[in-house]
């Protein structure tokens, strides 16, 4: 009876699209990553783990791209989460025009990443960029740097720009979490004589845990897949200093080294399937709780 009212053919269109453009390429990629598939020859031969040996060899640039990706993920996750919590606490109450402030902080997260990248290419320009001009004008000229060119700063500059863009989104999730905490907890804590830090430590942060967990997961998934920010700000340079997984995949794609490119995606796939498992568990748990 149910199958008649809710027929399976309702699902077929979506499932077909998802299988064709998402799942099948994923599975093909797994298989191709053990081959020498490239743009120069028609033949595709099985070469075992050679592609993975290249990726994990210290002489090539893949491994530094991998570690850059991990560093980017860890750094943006920590920065966005910590600043997101601080901003959310600040913009939770007691500020005039609070919705205006929230709206402004959230705004960069809806802009195309490519646009944010172009804006900061101008701001971080060593000669005319607003940041160095500003530092010079307020007498902190010694802090002015070649932000996107200097090896020591280029990658951290990308991390800073990405944090600027993504922070508002994380803050918004935390704010929603803050607003779901019942005021009665704070009232009884006040009666017991708790101060601000005490309330933060024993009420706010523990009850924010579900929201924080989700933001951490979102940030990790986003960080591992980062491409646009790096591509537009430095395109992996200077040299290979700011290369990440997806920019290396794109370069291999351009060079026609498809086998290595798919092997890189496979490495990412393995990392993400582990994280993905926890994400789904998390979402299902919440569904049960609601």
């Amino acid at each position, binding site marked *: 009876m149910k199958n008649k009212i809710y027929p399976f053919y309702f699902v077929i269109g979506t499932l077909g699209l998802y299988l064709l453009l998402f799942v099948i390429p994923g599975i093909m990629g797994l298989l191709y990553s053990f081959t020498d598939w490239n743009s120069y020859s028609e033949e595709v031969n099985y070469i075992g783990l050679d592609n993975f040996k290249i990726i994990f060899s210290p002489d090539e640039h893949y491994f530094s791209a991998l570690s850059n990706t991990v560093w980017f993920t860890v750094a943006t996750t920590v920065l966005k989460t910590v600043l997101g919590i601080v901003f959310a606490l600040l913009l939770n109450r007691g500020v005039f025009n609070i919705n205006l402030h929230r709206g402004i902080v959230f705004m960069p997260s809806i802009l*195309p990443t490519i646009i944010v990248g172009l804006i900061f290419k*101008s701001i971080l320009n060593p000669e005319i960029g607003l940041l160095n001009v500003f530092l010079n004008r307020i007498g902190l000229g010694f802090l002015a740097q070649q932000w996107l060119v200097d090896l020591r700063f280029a990658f951290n500059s990308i991390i800073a720009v990405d944090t600027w863009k993504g922070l508002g989104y994380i803050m918004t999730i935390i704010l929603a979490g803050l607003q779901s905490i019942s005021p009665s907890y704070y009232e009884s804590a006040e009666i017991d004589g708790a101060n601000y830090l005490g309330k933060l430590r024993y009420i706010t942060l523990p009850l924010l845990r579900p929201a924080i967990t*989700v933001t951490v997961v979102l940030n990790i998934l986003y960080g591992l897949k980062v491409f646009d920010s790096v*591509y537009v700000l430095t395109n992996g340079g200077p040299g290979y200093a700011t290369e990440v997984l997806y920019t290396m995949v794109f370069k291999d794609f351009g060079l026609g080294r498809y086998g290595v490119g798919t092997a890189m995606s496979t490495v990412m*796939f393995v990392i993400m399937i582990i994280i993905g498992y926890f994400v789904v568990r998390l979402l299902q748990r919440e569904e049960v709780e609601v």
Partner: protein
Amino acid sequence: MGGKNTFLTIVKNIVAWIISLVMLVPLLLILINSLKDKHQASSMGMDLPKSVHFENYLTVIVQGKLLRSFCNSMFYAGTAIIIALILTSMAAYVLSRNKTKLNKFIYFFIILGLAMPVNYVSLMKVMQITHLINTRIGIALLYAALQVPVSVFLIYGFIGTVPVELDEAGIIDGCGPIRLYFSIVMPLLKPVLVTVSILTFMDAWNQFIFPLYYLNSATKWPMTLAVYNFFGQFFKEWNLVCADIILTSLPVLIIYLLGQKYIISGMTAGSVKG
């Protein structure tokens, strides 16, 4: 005690304004410079334009062929929205209402895609085999496929709140499955369908990587790729680049201002309990 509170309020407000300024200044910088002449914009400062040059926008639209890429972006976003609204909502409805073992597995399998990376290299092969590579419809289908997990997740969650009794009433009145869905259930999904449409629009508009991989002819480029390419050609004329940046951002900014409530509810859905 009162004095301390007033002091705290003042500090909080000042800090809030500093934060907002840090977020706003980069955007203002672009707006101001988009109105300057080439010479004044070359220093990309916060000084106000000596004379206002609205014609920069016209120059960009003509030289950057923005009308064409605007139409492309609209086509990609529009097609992805239509597919999400019709196909994805139908799927989410059946998966939510008829929880057989197979359907539960399919739902799990689809939302796993929220975390999965795209394999761009082997996707190229699939695009070649299906003759979707370098076609507008191919890109639109990619955008739609990319949105499948999040759309199914959001709509599925919402359908749980629509009472099943309505379906039963519809069946008693003699509706077939298609009429039941499109004339009784779907209208009740309006809030979540608005959210899904807006999120799909934003993601499609901001997409950069798919067209970068799979579109080699400039005539099919969306606005993101066009602005990036324009920057490559005109990087010495920041006034024009800024005008292009503003025009590319304008549609998402307008949607954001109109649909803020839906965007925030969609982007935070499932992330916070309740």
